[in-house]
């Protein structure tokens, strides 16, 4: 069963998704990190990346495609990485421009956070973004992330130097925002 939000589902990547994912990667508006340029990622590269994933019961990352629940349209990609089991994970998200401002990214992010805190059992989730994309910062803040560090002039985008932002949300902060959920995991300290 995929992870289900209000309007979206997060499901595993499939081979037929690769052209969509490639197009997201090659869209300079969607792609936040200039270090990931140039926008010339090919279908062969994406197929190799897809095929390179090995089966594991102990993965340190997960990659999902965001799908519109009613229409089945592909909306974007959401992942977590650098998982320290039962402790922390890094979140990443990108969505097609067509869906900006529709609430789909927020729904996908909430769905992923619920999975990470309630199923994976982490104590903190963090993400890295930068000051040149306020849309991404607002999206994270809506879910309860706070800017915990601002590394000056550390990123280049649109010809400007931007600050890298370290954003995070602690487990207790997440559950405080979600009174409908009960945290059965006792605090460590």
């Amino acid at each position: 069963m995929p992870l289900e939000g209000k309007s979206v589902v997060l499901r595993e990547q499939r081979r037929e998704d690769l052209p969509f994912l490639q197009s997201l990667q090659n869209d300079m508006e969607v792609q936040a990190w200039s270090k990931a340029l140039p926008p010339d990622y090919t279908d062969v590269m994406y197929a190799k990346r897809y095929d390179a994933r090995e089966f594991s019961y102990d993965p340190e990352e997960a990659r999902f495609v965001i799908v519109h629940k009613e229409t089945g349209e592909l909306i974007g990609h959401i992942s977590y990485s650098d998982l320290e089991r039962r402790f922390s994970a890094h979140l990443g998200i990108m969505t097609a421009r067509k869906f900006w401002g529709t609430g789909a990214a927020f729904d996908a992010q909430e769905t992923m956070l619920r999975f990470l805190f309630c199923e994976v059992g982490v104590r903190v989730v963090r993400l890295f973004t930068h000051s040149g994309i306020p849309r991404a910062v607002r999206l994270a803040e809506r879910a309860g992330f706070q800017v915990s560090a601002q590394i000056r002039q550390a990123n280049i985008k649109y010809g400007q130097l931007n600050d890298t932002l370290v954003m995070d949300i602690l487990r207790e902060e997440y559950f405080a925002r979600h009174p409908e959920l009960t945290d059965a995991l006792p605090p460590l300290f």
Partner: protein
Amino acid sequence: MMKSSFQGNRLALRPFEPHDVPALQAYLNHPDLSGRRFIPWAFPDIAPLSQRQVEGIVQRWAEADRSLPLAVIRPDAGQLIGHAECDWHWDPHQPSVQVVIAPDYQRQGHGSEVLELLMRHLLDYTPAHNVSCWIADWNKPALTFCQRHGFRVAGRMRRAGIHQGRYFDLVINDILRTEWKAAHAGE
């Protein structure tokens, strides 16, 4: 004479060699360095390290890609007294630096000399623009060291780990190329 990034007034930086393993194992296992060894992630930062593990660390450093791990040597005595690293794994525009001095050699100015060599290398030979140090909030001497050398606190990566029965944050300290250059103009 041209200034070298690897030769200071009292210290030299060079790659690690297999014969460094005993001295490296000895100081890494010193209780004062517990939790602040600054070794590759795959190796324990607190538990005692075996000779084989330390050999693995040296091997990992020898194979380092997008980072420059170096042994800190006191040439007068031929002694290994620490290790240091520049890391531009994420982006050479914003590398990080780490300096570890063996407890017996701390508070003698060695850390400052090593930091200046690393910064000279990054600023004179790479496109580094912002250089950062990520330090556990409980590591007060290292935080003071950073501030003393002009680094500013950029914030914290909260709940970065667990140490002595509590969560700790990583304090991120950074300095811009222009700031470092201005502070060291005329040197």
